[in-house]
Protein backbone atom coordinates (compact mmCIF):
# COMPACT_ATOMS: atom_id res chain seq x y z
CA UNK A 1 0.00 0.00 0.00
CA UNK A 2 1.47 3.28 -1.07
CA UNK A 3 0.20 6.36 0.65
CA UNK A 4 0.09 9.16 -1.84
CA UNK A 5 -2.55 10.74 -3.93
CA UNK A 6 -0.70 13.81 -5.11
CA UNK A 7 -0.42 13.92 -8.87
CA UNK A 8 2.08 16.72 -8.57
CA UNK A 9 3.58 18.39 -5.56
CA UNK A 10 2.07 21.82 -4.94
CA UNK A 11 4.23 24.71 -3.80
CA UNK A 12 4.02 25.62 -0.12
CA UNK A 13 2.03 28.70 -1.11
CA UNK A 14 -0.49 26.67 -3.11
CA UNK A 15 -0.73 24.09 -0.33
CA UNK A 16 -1.31 26.87 2.21
CA UNK A 17 -4.16 28.24 0.10
CA UNK A 18 -5.69 24.76 0.07
CA UNK A 19 -5.33 24.57 3.84
CA UNK A 20 -6.97 27.99 4.14
CA UNK A 21 -9.88 26.83 1.98
CA UNK A 22 -10.19 23.70 4.12
CA UNK A 23 -10.10 25.63 7.37
CA UNK A 24 -12.75 28.03 6.06
CA UNK A 25 -14.95 25.07 5.11
CA UNK A 26 -14.47 23.61 8.60
CA UNK A 27 -15.38 26.88 10.29
CA UNK A 28 -18.59 26.96 8.25
CA UNK A 29 -19.36 23.29 8.88
CA UNK A 30 -18.97 23.64 12.64
CA UNK A 31 -21.80 26.17 12.57
CA UNK A 32 -24.04 23.48 11.07
CA UNK A 33 -22.69 20.84 13.45
CA UNK A 34 -23.08 22.88 16.63
CA UNK A 35 -26.68 23.69 15.79
CA UNK A 36 -27.60 19.98 16.01
CA UNK A 37 -25.77 19.24 19.26
CA UNK A 38 -26.36 19.89 22.93
CA UNK A 39 -24.48 19.65 26.20
CA UNK A 40 -20.96 18.15 26.05
CA UNK A 41 -21.06 17.54 22.30
CA UNK A 42 -22.02 21.15 21.68
CA UNK A 43 -19.18 22.32 23.94
CA UNK A 44 -16.81 20.13 21.95
CA UNK A 45 -18.06 21.59 18.67
CA UNK A 46 -17.56 25.09 20.06
CA UNK A 47 -14.01 24.24 21.16
CA UNK A 48 -13.16 22.75 17.76
CA UNK A 49 -14.70 25.76 15.99
CA UNK A 50 -12.40 28.01 18.03
CA UNK A 51 -9.39 25.83 17.12
CA UNK A 52 -10.20 26.01 13.41
CA UNK A 53 -10.86 29.75 13.53
CA UNK A 54 -7.47 30.32 15.18
CA UNK A 55 -5.76 27.98 12.71
CA UNK A 56 -7.47 29.71 9.77
CA UNK A 57 -6.25 33.10 11.02
CA UNK A 58 -2.67 31.82 11.40
CA UNK A 59 -2.69 30.39 7.87
CA UNK A 60 -4.03 33.69 6.48
CA UNK A 61 -1.26 35.52 8.32
CA UNK A 62 1.39 33.20 6.89
CA UNK A 63 0.18 33.83 3.36
CA UNK A 64 0.30 37.57 3.97
CA UNK A 65 3.84 37.19 5.31
CA UNK A 66 4.70 35.41 2.04
CA UNK A 67 3.26 38.40 0.16
CA UNK A 68 0.41 36.26 -1.14
CA UNK A 69 -3.21 37.38 -1.11
CA UNK A 70 -5.24 34.85 0.93
CA UNK A 71 -8.19 33.44 -1.02
CA UNK A 72 -11.48 34.57 0.52
CA UNK A 73 -13.91 32.11 2.07
CA UNK A 74 -16.99 31.05 0.14
CA UNK A 75 -20.32 32.54 1.23
CA UNK A 76 -21.61 29.06 2.00
CA UNK A 77 -20.51 25.43 1.72
CA UNK A 78 -22.88 22.60 0.82
CA UNK A 79 -22.55 19.67 3.23
CA UNK A 80 -22.26 16.27 1.49
CA UNK A 81 -25.44 15.09 3.24
CA UNK A 82 -28.22 16.91 5.15
CA UNK A 83 -27.24 17.85 8.70
CA UNK A 84 -30.49 17.26 10.52
CA UNK A 85 -29.59 15.30 13.64
CA UNK A 86 -26.94 14.64 16.25
CA UNK A 87 -25.66 11.61 14.32
CA UNK A 88 -25.37 13.41 10.98
CA UNK A 89 -23.66 16.32 12.74
CA UNK A 90 -21.10 13.99 14.31
CA UNK A 91 -20.59 12.20 11.01
CA UNK A 92 -19.89 15.53 9.30
CA UNK A 93 -17.49 16.47 12.09
CA UNK A 94 -15.42 13.33 11.51
CA UNK A 95 -15.55 13.73 7.72
CA UNK A 96 -14.39 17.35 7.60
CA UNK A 97 -11.55 16.61 10.02
CA UNK A 98 -10.46 13.63 7.92
CA UNK A 99 -10.51 15.73 4.76
CA UNK A 100 -8.57 18.52 6.38
CA UNK A 101 -5.98 16.07 7.74
CA UNK A 102 -5.11 15.14 4.16
CA UNK A 103 -4.90 18.76 3.05
CA UNK A 104 -2.47 19.50 5.88
CA UNK A 105 -0.55 16.32 4.96
CA UNK A 106 -0.09 17.73 1.46
CA UNK A 107 1.46 20.80 3.08
CA UNK A 108 3.83 18.50 5.01
CA UNK A 109 4.99 17.14 1.65
CA UNK A 110 5.38 20.57 0.05
CA UNK A 111 7.13 22.07 3.05
CA UNK A 112 9.53 19.15 3.29
CA UNK A 113 10.31 19.37 -0.43
CA UNK A 114 11.14 23.06 0.04
CA UNK A 115 13.27 22.32 3.14
CA UNK A 116 10.96 24.47 5.23
CA UNK A 117 11.39 22.79 8.63
CA UNK A 118 9.18 25.15 10.58
CA UNK A 119 6.26 24.75 8.15
CA UNK A 120 6.80 20.97 8.03
CA UNK A 121 6.48 20.78 11.82
CA UNK A 122 3.44 23.05 11.96
CA UNK A 123 1.73 21.03 9.24
CA UNK A 124 2.55 17.64 10.80
CA UNK A 125 1.14 18.82 14.14
CA UNK A 126 -2.00 20.02 12.36
CA UNK A 127 -2.50 16.62 10.68
CA UNK A 128 -2.41 15.05 14.14
CA UNK A 129 -4.81 17.62 15.59
CA UNK A 130 -7.33 16.85 12.82
CA UNK A 131 -7.03 13.10 13.42
CA UNK A 132 -7.58 13.57 17.15
CA UNK A 133 -10.66 15.77 16.58
CA UNK A 134 -12.04 13.25 14.08
CA UNK A 135 -11.61 10.48 16.65
CA UNK A 136 -13.61 12.54 19.16
CA UNK A 137 -16.58 12.50 16.77
CA UNK A 138 -16.56 8.87 15.72
CA UNK A 139 -14.67 7.15 18.54
CA UNK A 140 -12.11 5.62 16.23
CA UNK A 141 -9.34 6.42 13.78
CA UNK A 142 -7.71 4.99 10.67
CA UNK A 143 -4.20 3.75 9.95
CA UNK A 144 -3.82 6.71 7.58
CA UNK A 145 -6.37 9.25 8.78
CA UNK A 146 -8.61 10.44 5.97
CA UNK A 147 -7.38 8.15 3.23
CA UNK A 148 -10.31 5.72 3.37
CA UNK A 149 -13.13 7.95 4.59
CA UNK A 150 -12.54 10.59 1.96
CA UNK A 151 -12.00 8.34 -1.06
CA UNK A 152 -14.19 8.87 -4.09
Amino acid at each position, binding site marked *: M*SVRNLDA*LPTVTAALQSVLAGENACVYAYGLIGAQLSDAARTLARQFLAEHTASRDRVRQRLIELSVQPEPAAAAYNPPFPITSKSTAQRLGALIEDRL*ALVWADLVASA*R*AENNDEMTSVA*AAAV*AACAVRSSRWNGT*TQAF*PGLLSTKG
Partner: protein
Amino acid sequence: MVDPNAPDPTGSDDPDLELRTAVVTAEAKLIATYDAVIATFPDLADQLKPFRAHHAAHLAAVNIGQAIAAPTPAAPAVPSSSNAALRQLAKAEGAAATAREADCLHVSRWQFARELSLIGACESAHQSLLIRELA
Protein backbone atom coordinates in the same frame (compact mmCIF):
# COMPACT_ATOMS: atom_id res chain seq x y z
CA MET B 1 12.05 17.09 -7.65
CA VAL B 2 11.02 13.47 -7.25
CA ASP B 3 8.75 12.22 -10.00
CA PRO B 4 5.50 11.19 -8.24
CA ASN B 5 4.94 8.48 -10.83
CA ALA B 6 8.31 6.88 -10.33
CA PRO B 7 8.16 3.57 -8.49
CA ASP B 8 8.91 3.60 -4.79
CA PRO B 9 12.52 2.76 -4.02
CA THR B 10 12.79 -0.52 -2.22
CA GLY B 11 16.35 -1.00 -1.13
CA SER B 12 19.76 0.53 -1.52
CA ASP B 13 18.25 3.02 -3.99
CA ASP B 14 16.12 4.40 -1.11
CA PRO B 15 17.63 7.51 0.49
CA ASP B 16 15.30 6.99 3.46
CA LEU B 17 16.17 3.35 4.10
CA GLU B 18 17.74 4.09 7.48
CA LEU B 19 14.71 6.05 8.66
CA ARG B 20 12.36 3.41 7.28
CA THR B 21 14.24 0.78 9.24
CA ALA B 22 13.83 2.82 12.44
CA VAL B 23 10.09 3.23 11.84
CA VAL B 24 9.67 -0.49 11.06
CA THR B 25 11.43 -1.28 14.34
CA ALA B 26 9.25 1.18 16.27
CA GLU B 27 6.05 -0.22 14.76
CA ALA B 28 7.13 -3.80 15.47
CA LYS B 29 7.71 -2.81 19.09
CA LEU B 30 4.26 -1.22 19.36
CA ILE B 31 2.69 -4.35 17.85
CA ALA B 32 4.55 -6.51 20.40
CA THR B 33 3.29 -4.26 23.20
CA TYR B 34 -0.32 -4.57 22.01
CA ASP B 35 0.08 -8.35 21.69
CA ALA B 36 1.40 -8.60 25.24
CA VAL B 37 -1.41 -6.45 26.68
CA ILE B 38 -4.10 -8.33 24.73
CA ALA B 39 -2.66 -11.69 25.89
CA THR B 40 -2.71 -10.52 29.53
CA PHE B 41 -6.10 -8.75 29.40
CA PRO B 42 -8.29 -10.55 26.81
CA ASP B 43 -11.20 -8.28 27.74
CA LEU B 44 -9.35 -5.42 26.05
CA ALA B 45 -8.98 -7.34 22.78
CA ASP B 46 -12.05 -5.90 21.02
CA GLN B 47 -10.90 -2.40 21.77
CA LEU B 48 -7.20 -2.84 21.07
CA LYS B 49 -7.15 -5.11 18.02
CA PRO B 50 -8.10 -2.33 15.57
CA PHE B 51 -5.24 -0.22 16.90
CA ARG B 52 -2.84 -3.12 16.53
CA ALA B 53 -4.08 -3.56 12.94
CA HIS B 54 -3.30 0.11 12.24
CA HIS B 55 0.29 -0.46 13.33
CA ALA B 56 0.53 -3.54 11.14
CA ALA B 57 -0.66 -1.37 8.23
CA HIS B 58 1.95 1.26 9.11
CA LEU B 59 4.68 -1.34 9.17
CA ALA B 60 3.61 -2.81 5.82
CA ALA B 61 3.42 0.63 4.19
CA VAL B 62 6.80 1.76 5.45
CA ASN B 63 8.49 -1.55 4.66
CA ILE B 64 7.93 -1.25 0.91
CA GLY B 65 8.97 -4.33 -0.98
CA GLN B 66 9.66 -6.00 2.38
CA ALA B 67 13.18 -4.67 1.93
CA ILE B 68 13.68 -4.51 5.68
CA ALA B 69 13.77 -7.59 7.88
CA ALA B 70 11.17 -6.67 10.52
CA PRO B 71 12.50 -7.48 13.97
CA THR B 72 10.53 -9.63 16.38
CA PRO B 73 10.99 -7.78 19.68
CA ALA B 74 10.72 -9.65 22.96
CA ALA B 75 7.33 -9.31 24.67
CA PRO B 76 7.49 -6.26 26.94
CA ALA B 77 6.47 -6.48 30.58
CA VAL B 78 2.76 -5.78 31.08
CA PRO B 79 1.52 -3.87 34.16
CA SER B 80 -0.65 -5.80 36.59
CA SER B 81 -3.84 -3.78 36.07
CA SER B 82 -5.67 -3.16 32.80
CA ASN B 83 -5.79 0.57 33.48
CA ALA B 84 -2.03 0.68 33.97
CA ALA B 85 -1.63 -1.30 30.75
CA LEU B 86 -3.81 1.21 28.87
CA ARG B 87 -1.73 4.02 30.32
CA GLN B 88 1.43 2.25 29.14
CA LEU B 89 -0.03 1.97 25.63
CA ALA B 90 -1.13 5.62 25.63
CA LYS B 91 2.37 6.67 26.61
CA ALA B 92 3.92 4.50 23.90
CA GLU B 93 1.53 5.93 21.29
CA GLY B 94 2.34 9.48 22.36
CA ALA B 95 6.07 8.82 22.10
CA ALA B 96 5.62 7.23 18.67
CA ALA B 97 3.51 10.17 17.44
CA THR B 98 6.16 12.64 18.60
CA ALA B 99 8.90 10.62 16.93
CA ARG B 100 7.06 10.37 13.59
CA GLU B 101 6.37 14.11 13.63
CA ALA B 102 10.09 14.76 14.15
CA ASP B 103 10.98 12.21 11.45
CA CYS B 104 9.08 14.33 8.90
CA LEU B 105 11.97 16.82 9.06
CA HIS B 106 14.59 14.24 8.17
CA VAL B 107 13.18 12.33 5.21
CA SER B 108 14.57 12.77 1.72
CA ARG B 109 11.40 11.98 -0.21
CA TRP B 110 8.35 14.15 0.35
CA GLN B 111 6.04 11.19 -0.24
CA PHE B 112 7.49 9.59 2.85
CA ALA B 113 7.10 12.81 4.86
CA ARG B 114 3.41 12.85 4.01
CA GLU B 115 3.06 9.18 4.95
CA LEU B 116 4.87 9.68 8.25
CA SER B 117 2.66 12.62 9.17
CA LEU B 118 -0.43 10.43 8.70
CA ILE B 119 1.12 7.59 10.71
CA GLY B 120 1.95 10.02 13.53
CA ALA B 121 -1.58 11.44 13.36
CA CYS B 122 -3.06 7.96 13.76
CA GLU B 123 -0.84 7.41 16.78
CA SER B 124 -1.92 10.74 18.28
CA ALA B 125 -5.54 9.68 17.85
CA HIS B 126 -4.76 6.32 19.51
CA GLN B 127 -3.19 8.14 22.44
CA SER B 128 -6.23 10.41 22.78
CA LEU B 129 -8.69 7.50 22.54
CA LEU B 130 -6.76 5.44 25.10
CA ILE B 131 -6.57 8.35 27.55
CA ARG B 132 -10.31 8.97 27.16
CA GLU B 133 -10.95 5.29 27.84
CA LEU B 134 -9.25 5.79 31.21
CA ALA B 135 -11.05 9.01 32.09
